[in-house]
Every structure is written in structure tokens, then in C-alpha cells.
């Protein structure tokens, strides 16, 4: 494969760092705020029969984690192709 230029490398890495940061912020909010500190307030609302705070800690956060990792894998793998990074597996 052809070597990436320095500029390409930097923009590839910047993209990765940005994506990682966004995912971690969501992870933090979902776990420690929705499922933790704000759960009591959220429990005032009901979602398909569940108190919302309980729902976020028991179900919602888990589903969001799964989606986050899927999004990460999909976007980064697509980015690899865009930059012509192909592994000789």
C-alpha cells in the first residue's frame, strides 16, 4: 500500500480522536448522570411502564453502549477505506 502523507495521517488521527471523545462524552452522560446522579429526577417519568431513571440504568444505557461501539467500528473501518488503509490480514 502507498504510504500516507503526514497531512493525511494527521487528519485521520484527528478524526479518530474526535470520534472517541464524542463517544466517551455520551458514555459518561448516560452512565453517571442518567443512570446515576439524575436517575432520581428521571424516575418521576415513566417509559413503557418503567420509571425512567431505573430504565436508563438497567436497559437504556446498555443499549446505548452497544450502539456506540457499532458506530465506532463502522465509522473507523469506513475511514480506513477512505484513506486507502488496507490490511494485509
Amino acid at each position, binding site marked *: 500500500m502507498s504510504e500516507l502523507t503526514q497531512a493525511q495521517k494527521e487528519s485521520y488521527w484527528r478524526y479518530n480522536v474526535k470520534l472517541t471523545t464524542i*463517544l*466517551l462524552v455520551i458514555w459518561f452522560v448516560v*452512565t453517571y448522570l442518567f443512570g446515576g446522579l439524575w436517575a432520581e429526577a428521571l424516575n418521576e417519568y415513566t417509559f413503557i411502564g418503567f420509571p425512567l431513571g*431505573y430504565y436508563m440504568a438497567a436497559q437504556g444505557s446498555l443499549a446505548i*453502549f452497544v450502539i456506540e461501539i457499532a458506530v465506532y*467500528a463502522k465509522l473507523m*473501518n469506513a475511514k480506513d477505506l477512505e484513506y486507502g488503509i488496507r490490511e494485509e*490480514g
Partner: protein
Amino acid sequence: MNLNKIFGLYTVGFIAVTILIGIAEAVFGLSNRVIGWIFMGLSMGIYLLIGIVTRTSDADQYYVAGRGVPAVYNGMATGSDWMSAASFISMAGALSAQGFSGLAYVMGWTGGYLLLAVFLGPYLRQFGKYTIPDFLGERYGGHTPRIIGVVAAILASFTYLIAQVTGVGLIVSRFIGLDFNVGVFVGLIGVLFCSVLGGMRAVTWTQVAQYIILILSYLVPVVVLSFKLFAIPVPELTYGRLLQSNNVKAFQITADPQEKATRAKWAEEAKALGEKMKDPAASEADKDKAKAAKALADKQATAPAVEGAKLEKYLQTPKGVGMWNFLALTFCLMVGTAGLPHILTRYYTTPSVREARTSVGWSLFFIFLLYFTAPAYASFARDAVFTRLVGSKISELPAWVTLWAPAGLFSVVDKLGDGVVQFADFVVRSTDFVVLATPEIAGLPFVITGLVMAGGLAAALSTADGLLLTIANAISHDLYYNVINPKASLIKRLTITKVLLIGTALVSAWVATARLAIIVEMVAWAFSLGAASFFPALVMGIWWKRANYYGAVAGMLVGLGTTLFYMVGSRFFGLSWWGTNTVASGVFGIPLGFLTIWIVSSLTRAPSQEMQDFVVSIRYPKTGGASVAINEGH
């Protein structure tokens, strides 16, 4: 050979056999014991067979399954590697007892995979080594980081292994009636056969087979129960209604005069036991007994709700220091998930970085299926207690109660002597009944209970497999081959690994037969230990090219040291920093580890330019696991 076809046929075959056994149960009246034996024999037979078919003595195959495990299958293998006897049998029960606070385990044991996905998995794969201490040794140079890695890996894995072996013994003795100690050794044969013959390769494919049994057996009972109660076979959607009806019932129980009278009786008993504990004439053993009995009586005397509140205690979020502990525990479990070597090594086995990324996603999806369902289990079991047991006559208890009472998991005592079961009459000794008794609560035949046994066994064995391999490889590959004798031939290394596997297994079985009560706590510790020792050094090693040998050594020692200090101090000597619970000990060691690596690395000489360039280069996936030989001099 086509993997999808093989595992598809295997799954269909397993379901067909289960149905056949079910028919045999209905037609010939197969006894419960016989069904237990069939399930154990069948599943163990499959694992042994896989061990024989996939035996190998090739180093790449033995250590990292030839780096040829596709993402989906690596995901399943990681799933069963990850989900232990505790996840399968005990977690739902713990949730039923702890309510909201218990959700720390559900979030912690899943959310950690995001950290793994974005910080470690793909980069470790690009680095392309064999073990986690290997990474530390290569990245930071010198033997010390590697040796600290070996010690931490053994420390975190061994206690965890003992818990799995104990789990095997319990399952076998509960279902087949074998002696606990015999059960432990029967289980070991299953584990050793695979790992000794085929290393990581055999363990991987066995874990895939174990995952399929594990997840089927976990989902079937609660799906059927959900369908029976709500005509919707998705318990994760329907249990919200149970949360509401249980909530109403909890307030009724709190206000009911008969319940109040029962609780008063327990409170009296607790008071009397409290006096006994203070009695100077009583022996230490008697005092301990009184203490345990008092704890139980106190629990029975507690109402499930506070009158006037909107939500029962089960749904209420922890407050104050409770909330701090909830968040701290969640954090430790998450970071620990991304710091336990037996999970991390699984991402060395995929063919490429791309597959490693996808594979973390599949891993979490397969794990999610179980963890997403566990809180539903807890609610269905509570509903069974609230609506079917409470209020029934002592002389006509529900079938599941009479069936499981002899196992000693719970008992029903008529405290008031009125012949009716009050909620406070239901004495739970082990919340494991939640998963074990659900098939009967759902009115399913015993064959499904047998299936659950096979699932629990699969969960314990698969985790034991991964842990055993991690310990043996840490000693043979990292300590012996890399440090003591780098000239050792492959045959010699593999032989040593095999001897270590057998030795470690025997030692863990021997420790398990001692039945130490502290084992359960030690499992929670393993997460804090893994989190504080590995996570900072791994993340900094990948993300910060300036991190060096001195920083890593100091950081690992500080992380591990602080965590051990707080664990032992808080558990045995009354040490308390902001009231932090001993299971969340890592919450101090993790940030201190990061900080130490940063400060010490900044103050000392930078790593070689070669190493820095190399650290930058693993950001861009290139080749399928080329090994890079860059060593720093010291």
C-alpha cells in the same frame, strides 16, 4: 470448513436433543437426576470433542488461535469468557435483593467494553503480541514492567478462577447430587482437556459452543414466563409492568397489619439476639452465630417500602454516600472490564484491526443479551414471590417453592402461626433461587431446569478456561521464555505451559474445596486490581508516546499498591476514605496510576525515537499482526 454451518447445526442439534429429553421426561418419567446427568454428560462430551479436534502444537495457534478467529465468533468466545458463574447464576438474584444499587454491576460490566473498544482493542491487535505482559515488556522495554504485569495478571486471575471452580462444584452438587469436591474435579477435567490439548485455539471454539448453550438456557425460561403472563415473549419489554405492580404490592405489604405483626416478631427476635451478642459468658462461636442470625432477623423485620413514598425501596436510587459508592463501583467495574488480561488477549486472536473493532461490538452485543435480561429475571421472581407465594396457605405452597426448599436456598417459616404466608415469612438464604427456580415458576418441565444447569456449567467452565490459559501463559511465555530462558525451544515452552495448566488447575481446585467465604468478595476485588494495575499503563502506552519505562513501573506499582492498601485496610482494619466500599477500592488507584505515569515519565528520559515512532505508527492499521522487535536499552 464453514463455521456458520458447523455452529448452526450444533445449535439445532442441541435444541433437538433438549426436546427429545423433554419428550422422554413426559413419556417415560425420566427422573430429575437422570436428566441432570444427561445434560452434564452431553455438554462435557461436546467440549472434550472440540478439544480433541482442535488440538495443536503450533505457537501461533496455541497462544492466539492463529489470529484467525472471525469477529462474530471472537465476540461469542469473549462473551462466554466474560460471563462467569456469578453473571449467570447470581447476578439476577443479587439484583432482586439490591434493587437499583445492584444495577452498578449491569452498567459496569457492559459499559467497560466501550473503553476497551476505543482505547485498547484495535491498538493491541495492531501491536500484535501474545499476552498483556508481553505488550508492557515490548512497549516499555526491560523486564520489570513485564514482571509486574505477570504478578498483576496472576493476582487478578487466580481469585477469579477459584470462584469459577467453586461455581462448577456447586452446580454439579446441586443438580446431580455428587459431592462438592468430586464436582470440582469433574469440572476440571472438562477445562483441562481443552486448554492442554489445543491452547487458545481449542479454548476459543469451546467458548463459542459454551456461549450458545449459555444464552439459550438463560433466555428460554424468562421468555416463556413473559409470554405466559403478558403474551409478549420479550421479557425486557414486559417487566416494566411488573415493576409497577410489584411497587404497588410492596406498599400493600408495608401497610398490611398481619405483615406488620410478622415484622414485629422478627424485630423482637433480633433484639434478643443482640442481647446474646453482648453476653460476656457466651463463646466467640456462639456470638458469631448470634450475629449472623441477627442480621437475618433484621432483614426480615425490614419493610419493602416507606409509607407515604412514591416508589418502593427497590426502585429508589441510592443517596449520599450510597450514590458515591454506586458510581465508584460502576467506574471500577468498567475500567476493570477493560483491564482484565483474559479478556484483552482475546483481541489478539482476530485476523485484523478492522475485525478487532467489529469484534468488540459483537462481544458486547452477546454479553448485552444476558445483562439486559438479568433485571427482568429479578422482577419476574419478585412477582412470583409477591403474587403467588405471599398470601398462600402454608399447607398449599406453590410447586416451585416445595421443589426448591430442600436445596436450602430459601425457607418459608410461619412466624405468626396463622397458616398463611406473609412476605416476612419468606426467608432467603441465597438469592441464586431467582435464576434456578424460574423454569418451575414458569411451569416448565424439568428438562429446562437441566438446560439451565448446562448453561451455568458452561458459564463457569468457559471463564475458567480463559483464566487458566492467562495464568499459564503469563508464567510460561512471559516469565520463563522472555525473562529466564529466551533460548527455550517451542516444544519446551509448550510443555511447560501444559504442566502449568494442570498445576494451576489442581491448586485452584484444592483452594476451592476449602470453601472460603471471602472468595465472592475477592472476585469484585479482581476488577479493581486489573483496573488499577493494567488500564493506566496500557492506555498511556498506546496514547502517549512520551510514556516511558520509569513512568510505567512507578504507575503500575502505585496503582496496584494503593488499591491493595485500601482493599485490605477497608476490609480488615476499618480504613475509610469518604466511606468508600471495599469493592470499589480501585477508584483511588486508577487515577493515581495515570497521574504517576504522567509525572514520572515527564521527569525522566524520553523513550527512544524508534519507540516513539512505533507508538505513533500503531495509530494507522497496516499489517495483520507483524511482530516488531524494538527494544529499549536500560
